[in-house]
């Protein structure tokens, strides 16, 4: 019963020496993945900076076609979902099984609200012929190619972000079920913590996307 070398701690997988080492491995592994994600999204942010430099007027015109109210609302929703995710990790740390599952379900609900608003926004862009491709129409005076480049990056960046959220929601559903079944304990809830890291990262990407895409040149002509 005492901490003999032969006695395995509760929640410790066989390949680790201690709970601390197990947690560190899980935490670090997730961060290594997130670093690749930083570079993945980072390439798109770099492309955005460059094309905006060359197509400034078109980017401002394109940005004015986006709905700031919906964008700000979604930003608040996503920050709220980060809070509920952080609270889910807290609940797992202190061993509150049902509360962990509840906070995860709340996070999923807020994520779905975000995606719902995104669907409304995307539909409006399709109806206004702002989706890049043969159907793209722009009356001017800004060059249509510049505005189209803005919408190329808009759909690519928000689309990739939304894809991350859809995958995240899918994994959170499994996580909520596992939490409800009592798989996690104060000793080992690394899966909850790892999913939390992923969800917060997706939040960070949006924190940059919102001002860069929605708020460009809003003061012009005011």
């Amino acid at each position: 019963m005492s901490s003999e070398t032969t006695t395995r701690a509760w929640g410790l997988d066989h390949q680790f020496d201690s709970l601390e080492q197990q947690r560190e491995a899980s935490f670090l592994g997730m961060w290594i993945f997130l670093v690749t994600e930083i570079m993945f999204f980072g390439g798109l942010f770099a492309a955005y900076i460059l094309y905006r430099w060359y197509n400034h007027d078109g980017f401002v015109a394109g940005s004015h076609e986006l709905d700031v109210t919906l964008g700000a609302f979604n930003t608040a929703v996503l920050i709220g979902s980060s809070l509920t995710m952080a609270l889910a990790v807290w609940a797992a740390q202190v061993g509150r099984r049902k509360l962990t599952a509840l906070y995860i379900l709340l996070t999923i609900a807020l994520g779905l609200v975000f995606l719902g608003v995104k669907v409304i926004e995307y539909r409006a862009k399709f109806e206004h012929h702002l989706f890049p491709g043969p159907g793209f129409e722009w009356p001017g005076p800004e060059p249509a190619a510049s505005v189209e480049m803005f919408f190329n990056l808009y759909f690519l960046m928000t689309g990739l972000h939304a894809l991350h959220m859809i995958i995240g929601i899918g994994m959170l559903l499994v996580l909520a079920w596992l939490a409800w079944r009592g798989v996690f304990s104060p000793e080992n809830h690394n899966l909850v913590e790892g999913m939390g890291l992923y969800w917060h990262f997706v939040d960070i990407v949006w924190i940059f996307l919102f001002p860069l895409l929605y708020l460009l040149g809003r003061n012009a002509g005011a």
Partner: protein
Amino acid sequence: MAEHVTPIRVYILVFLALMVGTAITVGVAYLHLGPLNDLVAMAIAVTKATLVVLYFMHVRHSSRLTKITVVAGFLWLAILVGLLLSDYLTRGFLSS
């Protein structure tokens, strides 16, 4: 030894700070600040991201190895953007 459990109070405070930051970002976007507009928007975004990384993602209380990994990720992104811009933004220097 045991992992650090962040009190709920801290999470609520960070959440409120992030919401205030979002409101300021939207408000500042409508002011006439010239090139400062972009600077202020990005400064607020970086501050918000730092809060999320330190408190929501627990990096403040994690090991040095994890901290180095996180910093390295953002540092390499800065190198990517920095070298890209040092090329494209200086091309006009030669032709003019």
